[in-house]
């Protein structure tokens, strides 16, 4: 025959002991909060202990800037960084307005490196013959080789464009009728120059603008 032993229980602490223990724990927690957590997490250091322990540096880590290989003269070719294309300097903005006379045509193109991108939109006051194309640089005094990417009659278009090769890239617009047509083009992109080529083969370079320059647009007639 066996007898079950009754479990021994510690005597409950007195209320005074409980209050004293709680106060000690709260004081310790407060001390840790003031000397370690606030300086390290939020940079708040009311007792100066965080700075002495080097904890405030954790809350305010120094910023290490990754230097881009910036150079104004460098070609605006992108360097792939995952989905990001990084460029050696900022993009440009351009607005071009033209009154295209009866039956006349005009080309407007940007100098772009292979892989460089731009966004664009243009509208015309009436339908025009249109050809968005790129031109390879002329080799050995020959004619530059052109590639058409969108050759349709249009009155407007908007999109993005990534240059498939280094060269000049842009639009040919032809007025098919006897009334003057107004065309307005707006672009932003990584191009280094803009040129207007008229039907008399004269070439007119255009000034490009940095993104922080606001202007009201220009009008030029062929």
């Amino acid at each position: 025959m066996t007898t079950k032993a009754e479990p021994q229980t510690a005597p409950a602490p007195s209320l005074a002991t409980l209050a004293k223990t709680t106060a000690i724990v709260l004081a310790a927690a407060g001390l840790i909060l003031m000397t370690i957590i606030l300086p390290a997490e939020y940079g708040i250091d009311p007792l100066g202990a965080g700075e002495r322990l080097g904890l405030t540096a954790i809350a305010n880590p120094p910023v290490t800037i990754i230097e881009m290989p910036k150079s104004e003269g460098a070609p605006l070719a992108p360097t792939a960084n995952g989905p990001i294309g990084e460029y050696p300097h900022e993009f440009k903005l351009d607005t071009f307005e033209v009154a295209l006379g009866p039956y006349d045509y005009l080309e407007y193109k940007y100098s772009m490196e292979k892989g460089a991108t731009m966004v664009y939109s243009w509208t015309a006051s009436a339908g025009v013959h249109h050809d968005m194309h790129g031109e390879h640089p002329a080799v050995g005094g020959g004619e530059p080789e052109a590639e058409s990417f969108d050759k349709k009659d249009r009155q407007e278009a908007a999109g993005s464009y990534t240059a498939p090769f280094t060269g000049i890239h842009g639009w040919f617009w032809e007025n098919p009728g006897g009334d003057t047509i107004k065309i307005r083009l707006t672009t932003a992109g990584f191009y280094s120059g803009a040129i207007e080529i008229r039907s008399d083969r004269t070439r007119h370079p255009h000034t490009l603008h940095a993104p922080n320059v606001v202007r009201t647009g220009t009008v030029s007639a062929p």
Partner: protein
Amino acid sequence: MKVTIIAALSAIIMASVVGLSAHDEYRIIGTVTKISAATLTVKQSKDGKVFTMKTDANTIVTRDKKKVARTEMKTGAYVVVDALGDSLEDLVVLEVRIVPAPTAK
């Protein structure tokens, strides 16, 4: 010797082709002021300049996108001329399009 001659001829042909293809295409829009057997003179409407261009057997004349006889091209006609050359002073006409004169504004 044979190889040298072939190479020299090829170089000459290539140079000629490059030379020809280096010409630019110009557009003159305006009114025909004079026609001769081998030339066409047009007064450009945008600035009043007068250009005399050569015509040859390859020059075509069209109206409404259809080829028409060269005799259709008359003094006073409003035309769009596409011509090939090194400059505006030295052009050979590729195509003459007879079009309606622009609406007066």
